[in-house]
């Protein structure tokens, strides 16, 4: 049940009314109800792996309590081994379901003479496993570090791991931020309701109007790159980058909006990443819930100040970041590419220089590098990269500007993208990317909502799943 379906709208309406009208007595009843709803939501998408979420929850719950018990007795070693055991179990589960096929295939390719049994391969990928595993890991690591208290309320923890707006495609939850919210009874506030609906509307607009329409162009060019001119390939690379952004940030906005409707606050996952002036800034604004997770739980513990240790840490973090996105060599290559850019940025001491904020040249250069990075993800063969590169290097490529503004369907996409960037730029200092605080007139605001709704209804494209739900 995708967020952009009529079924979800009905589901959300029923859940919303029941939550606030029938299960509003205290935090326990609110949590129990949301947990049932979350498990139902997941089961409707793929019931086969419901047990796996329950297993992850039970592991986190029991290990969390054990770690806490040992810490209370000052048994640091035992607490550490418990924490390590929990990490290993979670990573084994994630590794088996997400990376088994990849490693077996890669192993068979590298070592000649070894044939893989094709029936052994193709382990099905549980929906949202990368998200809820990282969410669960964050809890036990935080308990070990003493940043959060181990909860004795299993319903609360289960909800933290499986809260339905987040479970399929994040944002990845952090126990320090979310568990205290689940511990308290949520009260309905008119402002929260309006904020929630507004974020949902904005996310839906980005998904349906921008991401899905860019996807049509990108897929068409990707499947026929041999017969396409360089300008079309370049345009597909640019639109592909916006597609990924609008798709994923759209999902995040919708998840944040839905959570807000239930009185739960989730931190924003994107912060105008395309206005970054360098690669480090980009990664602090893109998929914040993942990058902050990697920073806090991998980069910081590895911390070192020698050049070699910095390079090693950057490599480790970005390869994990790449692999987290997909069990595929393209993602590893993408991770390495970003690691290289990051390392170059650090070692040319750019981070020490004060770059002029919002410098157009720097923004354009960063955006170009980002686009090139995302284009790696769409490459299926080295021959494809070679052909596309050759075509892009031709003079004809310059005519892409003509396509951008004079081809009607591309122009529509361009206008929608510009509108999105302008709106998000205006709201760059706000809590949410779409608050319309600058529009003071109530009727004008209502008109903007209606226009967005109409554009969504009349540009509805079906059958386009969320890209990040595949991770």
């Amino acid at each position, binding site marked *: 049940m995708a967020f952009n379906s*009529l079924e979800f709208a009905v589901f959300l309406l029923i859940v919303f009314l029941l939550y606030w009208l029938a299960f509003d007595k205290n935090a326990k009843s609110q949590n129990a109800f949301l947990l049932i709803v979350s498990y139902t939501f997941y089961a409707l998408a793929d019931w086969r792996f419901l047990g796996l979420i329950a297993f992850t929850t039970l592991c986190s719950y029991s290990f969390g309590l054990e770690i806490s018990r040992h810490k209370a007795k000052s048994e640091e070693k035992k607490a550490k081994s418990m924490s390590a055991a929990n990490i290993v179990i979670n990573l084994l589960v994630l590794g088996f379901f997400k990376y088994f096929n990849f490693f077996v295939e890669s192993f068979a390719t590298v070592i000649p003479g070894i044939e893989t049994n094709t029936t052994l391969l193709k382990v099905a990928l549980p929906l949202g496993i990368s998200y809820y595993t990282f969410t669960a890991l964050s809890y036990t690591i935080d308990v070990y570090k003493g940043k959060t208290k181990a909860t004795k309320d299993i319903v609360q923890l289960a909800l933290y791991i499986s809260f339905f707006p987040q479970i399929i495609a994040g944002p990845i939850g952090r126990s320090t931020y979310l568990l205290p919210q689940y511990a308290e009874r949520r*009260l309905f506030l008119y402002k929260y309701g309006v904020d929630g609906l507004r974020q949902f509307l904005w996310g839906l607009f980005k998904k349906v109007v921008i991401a899905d329409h860019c996807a049509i162009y990108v897929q068409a060019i990707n499947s026929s790159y041999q017969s396409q001119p360089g300008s079309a390939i370049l345009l597909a690379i640019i639109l592909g980058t916006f597609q990924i952004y609008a798709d994923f940030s759209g999902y995040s906005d919708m998840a944040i909006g839905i959570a807000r409707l239930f009185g739960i606050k989730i931190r924003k996952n994107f912060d105008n990443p395309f206005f970054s002036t360098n690669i480090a800034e980009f990664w602090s604004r893109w998929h914040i819930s993942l990058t902050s997770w990697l920073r806090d739980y991998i980069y910081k513990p590895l911390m070192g100040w020698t050049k070699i240790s910095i390079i090693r840490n950057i490599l480790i973090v970005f390869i994990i970041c790449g692999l987290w996105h997909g069990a595929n060599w393209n993602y590893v290559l993408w991770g390495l590419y970003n690691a290289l850019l990051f390392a170059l940025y650090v070692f040319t001491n750019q981070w020490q220089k004060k770059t002029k904020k919002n410098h157009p040249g720097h923004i354009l250069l960063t955006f170009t590098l980002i686009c090139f990075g995302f284009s790696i993800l769409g490459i299926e063969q080295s021959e494809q990269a070679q052909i596309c590169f050759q075509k892009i290097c031709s003079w004809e490529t310059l005519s892409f500007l003509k396509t951008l503004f004079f081809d009607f369907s591309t122009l529509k996409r361009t206008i929608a993208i510009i509108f999105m960037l302008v709106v998000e730029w205006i709201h760059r200092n706000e809590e949410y990317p779409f608050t319309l605080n600058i529009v003071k007139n109530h009727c004008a605001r209502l008109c903007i909502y209606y226009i967005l709704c109409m554009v969504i209804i009349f540009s*509805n494209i079906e059958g386009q799943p969320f890209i990040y739900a595949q991770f």
Partner: protein
Amino acid sequence: MHNSEKTHFLVKVILAFMPILVVLAICEILLHHCDNEYKYKNEWLSQNAKDVQVLILGPSHTRTGINPSYLSEKAFNAASMAQDFKYDYLIFSKFINQMESLRYVILPVSYATILHSLDSSSEKGYIHYYILEYNFDNQPFHLNNCFYFCHSNSIMQLFQNDTPTYAKLGNGITSTSTSRTQGWEKIAPATAKSHSASFYPEVSNKQILTIYSQNLNYAQQIVNLCEERNVHVILLTTPTYKTYWENIDPKQYDMMLDFCKQLQDEHSNVSYLNMMKDERFGYDDFYDCHHLSVDYGAIKLSTILNDYIMNTLEPQRASSIIPATETTTSE
């Protein structure tokens, strides 16, 4: 405070959503009155099923690839975009009892369609037409499929001109050799790969085999219904361009041959025409690497099929039918 805010919010939301609901209701009513290919085919078959002698089923390969007006017997093309064996069976079983004159069913079996299931494909946006127009009520329930406005291919009808995309006998008419994309033959290898199950590592072997056996099961049910009524089934693999068939997965190709062989072995009323690599079809006969152009390729294929029916199948059937008088005598 808490409760009054809830009431205030709910009242405002209901009022704010009213205009949107009204727009959606108007769109839905307008779309119900719009013509579409599925509505036309359902109505045509409801009124003329008893006269149909040749029924063409299948996806776009036969929708654009066979022009019924080039067949000597009264034919109708009930094929539609991305229509799989399940929907072929549902359409066929809906009208079979009315089809008193039916003699031949043309059932396409292609490299791509043996592993195609509309219900789980990216083209599932067509499913609502079968529910809303053909009234197939045994589908898994999806709210989106109960309304036209949830589907872009429906809602776009409100903004498009009324130029029909199908002929009176149900065949597609827009895929002409002049309207095709330049360089279509170069993308054939990529298209062939995208039609191969091995191209999708996320799809398990079990899923592939499940779809294959479901499709075979539906094809068998169609053949069974035909056998009961002495109707001959022509399994047809439509022509594809050289650059397409040179890049297919041989294992999947063998699966396609096995699919047809099994149907032929189990039933006496089945013949198979594999024209996938047929050299009679050249560059101009194709709209793209796996679809024929309606102005050249479809005419050629329809003529070949007609010859096959009239010159090969008809004499065979005539000789195999025992005259009624003989049957009576022997009894």
